[in-house]
């Protein structure tokens, strides 16, 4: 993992940058279908294909935020539809925990999103893509203020015990 890259200053016409992790079997195919159907949506997301939403390591999300992403979108299969039986359940468990951690760091929860989008739901893919951009534009660029003394270890522990 390399050093974080400086996030550019907010400008007029700010375009949020989204890193998307899509499951190979559902959301990635929905994105292909949106293309074949010539649907139009916001161009902000950059898709990284994984075999299963269960492959998305929380560290990937951290890394994306640390390197200038304004939002991260994870797309997986609906419950009961996972190509690998239950990877999406594991993705959800990690996602909920990760969201708490991110919120604790001052990252708005709208910046991270987990969506179940089947291979047939190109319209949902389009709507989510566009909607997320609208939400992120309202939030503006990601700004995480790290306290000068760093995050307090006691606070972290209190959060974990809560």
């Amino acid at each position: 993992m390399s050093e974080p890259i400086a996030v550019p200053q907010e400008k007029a016409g700010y375009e949020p940058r989204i890193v998307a992790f899509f499951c190979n079997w559902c959301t990635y195919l929905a994105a292909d279908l949106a293309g074949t159907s010539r649907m139009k949506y916001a161009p902000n997301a950059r898709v990284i294909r994984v075999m299963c939403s269960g492959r998305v390591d929380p560290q990937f999300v951290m890394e994306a935020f640390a390197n200038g992403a304004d939002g991260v979108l994870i797309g997986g299969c609906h419950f009961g539809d996972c190509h690998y039986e239950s990877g999406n359940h594991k993705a959800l468990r990690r996602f909920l925990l990760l969201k708490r951690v991110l919120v604790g760091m001052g990252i708005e929860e709208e910046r991270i999103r987990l969506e179940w989008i089947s291979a047939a739901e190109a319209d949902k893919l389009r709507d989510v893509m566009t909607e997320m951009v609208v939400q992120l534009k309202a939030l503006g660029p990601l700004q995480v203020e790290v306290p000068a003394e760093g995050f307090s270890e006691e606070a972290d522990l209190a959060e974990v015990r809560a």
Partner: protein
Amino acid sequence: MNPADTNGNGQPKIGVYVCHCGTNISAAVDVEAVRDFAEGLPGVTLARGYKYMCSDPGQELIKEDIQANGLDRVVVASCSPSLHETTFRRATSEGGLNPYFFQMVNIREQDAWVHIDMDAATDKAKDLIRAAVHRVRFHKPLERSRVPVKPAVMVVGGGIAGIQAALTMANADKHVFLVEREPSIGGHMAQFDKTFPTLDCAACILTPKMTEVRANPNITLWTMAEVDSVDGYVGNYSVTVRHKPRFIVEDACVGCLDCIDACVFKVGKTPDEFNVGLSMRKPVYIPFPQAVPPLVVIDQEACIEFKSGRCKKTCVEVCADRNAIDFTQTETHETVEVGAIIIATGFKTFDPTRIPWYGHGVYPEVYTALELERLVNSSGPTEGHVTRRDGRTPQTVGIVHCIGSRDINTNEHCSRVCCMYSLKLAHLIKEKTGAEIYNFYIDIRAAGKGMEEFYNRVAEEGVHFIRGKVADVYPEDGDTGRVVLQAEDTLLGRVRKIPVDMLVLATGVEPQADAEDVRRTFNITCAGGGFFMERHPKLAPVSTFTDGIFLAGACQGPKDIPDTVAQAGAAAAEALALVDRGYVEMEPNTAYVVTEECSGCKTCIPLCPYTAITRVDEKAEINPVLCKGCGTCVAACPSGSIRQNLFEDEEIYEEILGVLAHV
């Protein structure tokens, strides 16, 4: 992090190819700017644009550059990897590199086709290519492993699609398990009278195929059976089938039907499923005269013996020493190993009571088309006489098209067969009764061989066509027993009210009620509308996203018999191609453990749905044969000691940096 060992000195030589796809990509993405950009990326030796990278000359470019310019990594930015990843991996391999020294970038489906702003689409293409260039440096040489394939095949559903697929494969000397949940094979086609547009008798062309299924030694036919669960993977499926009790010993029953006559029920009191409830059957019955297997079945719900245990069992008496009746049968399960599965579970017809104003189930003279099929059929409840429920022969008949089709309130899709079967029914009713027939249609869809000609023929026979959707059906004043059809004739531009003796609703085609369960059992996908989704609508129409599982017939979408049979043949050919080769090559995206880094914490073990991970000598160990490559354990490993081929952590981190890097 060091780039993968490339060319001995750690400096990769990457070739980037930007496909224009005719104008599919170049119309929305500035491909020249993208090429210039790619050429400037670190590690990139050359970048080329080309009109069609998937063409032979396009692939040749890759091979020549590998050899002439010593490329050791290849990136192609073109369409979706689901289309051409295999193509370009092969080209990379033919150029002399490991096929996995390749990375594909999707700038068509997920870029050019979905964005309007050319600058934004061009920026996106650049970011995605930069990510691939970053990533591909870390690619490792990988080998596909070969796994043997089980030689047998399973076909689920015994309608015309399943029958055709089973026979084709059995004739190629493959063993086929044909699973049908009803007591007989035949499906909907067995219920039809004539078939459009040639008017050949459905039973005459179907029955020989049904008998052939029973006679073919390569086919194991299981009726009253359903698939409970499917385990395994392409080439090696383990399918558990649930056998429902027939209460008849199949080997002992000779199909004499004496038990039906002998039943204590003098007349049937249960609606006959095959005649869509237009006649009644006894608790012991044969589904229809040509049923295959030609065996009776006992309906547990209706039989007195099951209700009270005190029936005289006259059926058992008459069966005598054949001893074919066995009230003690219970559900059993059986597991078989197959290499491929063809799903041919068919369709159901639309339930017209969902549109109450058409009056089905309210006015006795309102029928569905399937009910009419039974009425015109000489083996049907009226022996082929088209009569109303009060016994009168209708003099006027209305046929209303598009019931439950082409309507956002019910189903958006066109059911494809209704126009043609409506024309066929119009012809048959007119032939049998001489009635005046009014077709209410939105559009007549008579596409396909011989269809328009058939439409013209029926029109020339004097059948009336009114372009308009019936908005209301109500009883005629007085005790005429007729219903009035009210519709706007959109060609005349006025409302018409036509009283008819009989109304036929051309109900559409829908997915089976349990299609969702079947989909989950086989791990396949449903498209919009609930029909099973094919891998590619044009180029892989019978494949699914699950390798080794194929589709045939109307479970994939509404289709007529000729198309169903053709598709069943295609599905059989695909399944044959798989099992006949004898092995499958597995994508090498499995997970593996870096043993020296593993702390033995066991976090990964319960996460694996395939129990591929075990603990050996305090360390995790992954069985590569069982691993399917989801990567869930990789993401969970606290020490990072589980890795995944093709989706290594550093490969994904490089992609993240690549898409986000500012240049």
